[in-house]
């Protein structure tokens, strides 16, 4: 049993919070994992990505080999396409439909979404709407994690536990908002 995931988004969108939740859930469930992330210069509003590998056997490379990712989990639609050469032929994309437009040449959004739909069984979620419904526009990362959780080899309950732990350090209401965002994302997918 293994799962290779590429997390993607724009610096500041909280993909490392997603990684924190999955890493800790994996540890609790006795899985092996490796998770490579980008620090430093690229974090300043640029494209960011994290390679996250889960397995019940030892993992070697910190990076997912090209063509081996089971899922691209993205908080931004354009960014979900940036790593498509990592996706295996039967891999899926789970992404937000809400663009982050901090570049002048952002392509036509419909074309971006068509590109995502060209990958079979992909899931596109209006994360901004659901995050607002949960109580904070910033909780879009947890909406996407919720939507992806149906496909993850980790238990929904374990993921929720670590969302709570992560945000409790700031405040209880923030923890509630993020768990709610996760559940709304989970329920939004069939």
């Amino acid at each position, binding site marked *: 049993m293994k799962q290779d995931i590429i997390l993607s988004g724009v610096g500041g969108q909280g993909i490392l919070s997603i990684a924190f939740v999955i890493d800790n859930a994996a540890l609790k469930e006795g899985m092996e994992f490796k998770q490579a992330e980008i*620090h430093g210069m*690229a974090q300043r509003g640029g494209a960011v990505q994290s390679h996250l590998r889960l397995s019940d056997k030892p*993992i*070697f490379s910190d990076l997912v080999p090209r*063509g081996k990712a089971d899922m691209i989990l993205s908080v931004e639609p354009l960014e979900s396409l940036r790593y498509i050469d990592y996706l295996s032929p039967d891999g899926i994309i789970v992404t937000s439909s809400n663009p982050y437009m901090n570049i002048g040449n952002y392509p036509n959004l419909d074309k*971006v979404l068509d590109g995502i739909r060209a990958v079979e069984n992909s899931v596109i979620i209006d994360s901004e709407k659901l995050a607002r419904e949960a109580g904070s526009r910033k909780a879009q990362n947890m909406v996407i994690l919720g939507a992806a959780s149906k496909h993850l080899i980790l238990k929904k309950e374990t993921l929720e536990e670590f969302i709570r732990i992560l945000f409790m350090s700031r405040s209880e209401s923030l923890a509630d908002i993020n768990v709610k965002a996760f559940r709304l994302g989970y329920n939004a997918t069939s």
Partner: protein
Amino acid sequence: MKTEILLGDEAVALGAIHAGLTSGFSYPGTPATEVMEYLIRASKKEAKFNASWCVNEKVAYEEALGVSYSGKRTMVSMKHVGLNVAADPFMNSALTKINGGLVVVVADDPGMHSSQNEQDSRYYANFANIICLEPSGQQEAYDITRAAFDVSEKFNIPVLIRVVTRLSHSRSKVQTRPPQNENEIKYGEGKDWTLLPANARKRFEILMRRQSEVITFSNKSDFNKLYLNEKNSSFGIIASGIAYNYVWENLKDFPQKPSLLKICTYPLPEELISRLVQQVDSILVVEEGYPFIEKSLRGLFGISGKTVNGRLNGRLPMTGELSSDNVRKALEMIPNTTQILQDFTLPARPPQLCPGCPHGDTLNALNKVLKPFSGAVVFSDIGCYTLGALPPYNAVDTCVCMGASIGMAKGGAEAGVFPSVAVIGDSTFSHSGMTPLLDAVATDTNMTLIILDNNVVAMTGGQPTFAPGEGLIRIVEGLGVRKNHIQVIVPLPKNLEKNIQIIKREINHKGLSVIIAQRECVEEVLKKKRRGAK
């Protein structure tokens, strides 16, 4: 035994703490920053050891040497180019009789994710005739760091731990062991630490005599692994550090396993290499960074009757980072099938200055002032403002190394560049900018220095700086810059016109001027707000 989730950098830090660390020192730099960040967080909880940011890597190294002299254990961490700054104490410390364990952690950045070159620190260890340890994963980063202090004390030399970006910034499980106590204080002896020629000659001889013992250590180290497949005499692999993982990622589905030597210690384990080479006809060398092992193995004339493949003959790319994909190609395996993007060009999303960044306001004003001058050059430096080289600013012309902006502006001005402008951040100025400014004061060179004081080391995530604000102004005055040519501006959109006038006036002054642009980093302001709101 406890299990923790740690970045490679953090595993190094925790290994040092558990080895009885007394003091850690560093200057921030990607991908090494997280070593010290972890030490500082842990020291606040446990308070048994010191952990501090220093003004630059050279000073950090010298502070560590003082700890070692006292008999206690110390670690200094930096990015690869930081070791260039610390090269003087580093090279000379190899000749001293290291007393308390001294471990130098250097994080290389193959692929240049956040750096201006991809120099390979194994060459530095080789240059200094010391031991280098190169972990292949997070667990090994912890284990190797713990062991490194013992090794340093056993051979009385510094030990360099080389990590690379993909290990520094990758998380995994690490099992830790109970910590040991710090060393008692026990001074070194003056004759072993006073490198006057008469002493230094003796010390160098001792260091060189040590080499055979050090190679024996390398041959016997548990961190190297030799697997010989007697049935396969055609092909073998030597892989070091994390490159070993990329090999295994592919060997999983390799029918006839080749012989494989994993190298994690230097000087090279000659005996292990010799056993592998005797076994096979063709050797693939896979190493992250420069072809260090490959060059040693090949020598000038190669090995008679054997083929050596690697970066030097193009089997692996000559530059850039390894991956399981390019290693797969080097193993002559069929590439994995991937999905491809149809009829769509993906625009790049490069990093950029944050919205509201004070550097943006200063660079805007500077651009407006320099527009009429066709000969203007803006010599810049290392920091967030280097992003000013990209659109929409296109405001700076150089970025070479820490502090270079000021010396380059002086050299350029004296060669006829006008206007010659230097742009440097407050932290980079304290790191390496004061000495070149003193040079420019001595000659009153016709140049304008702009110090961007945002009160923090911003690019690496907000570490403290040593002399922002009033302190910075006093330093500039103290270095001898004339008071009427030290101008302080506040970079805000509403001050644009005023700031343009000030910059214009100082550029037209025939001599040295310093403009200090003071406004706190917007990220820091946000962080403080969040903390306040809590």
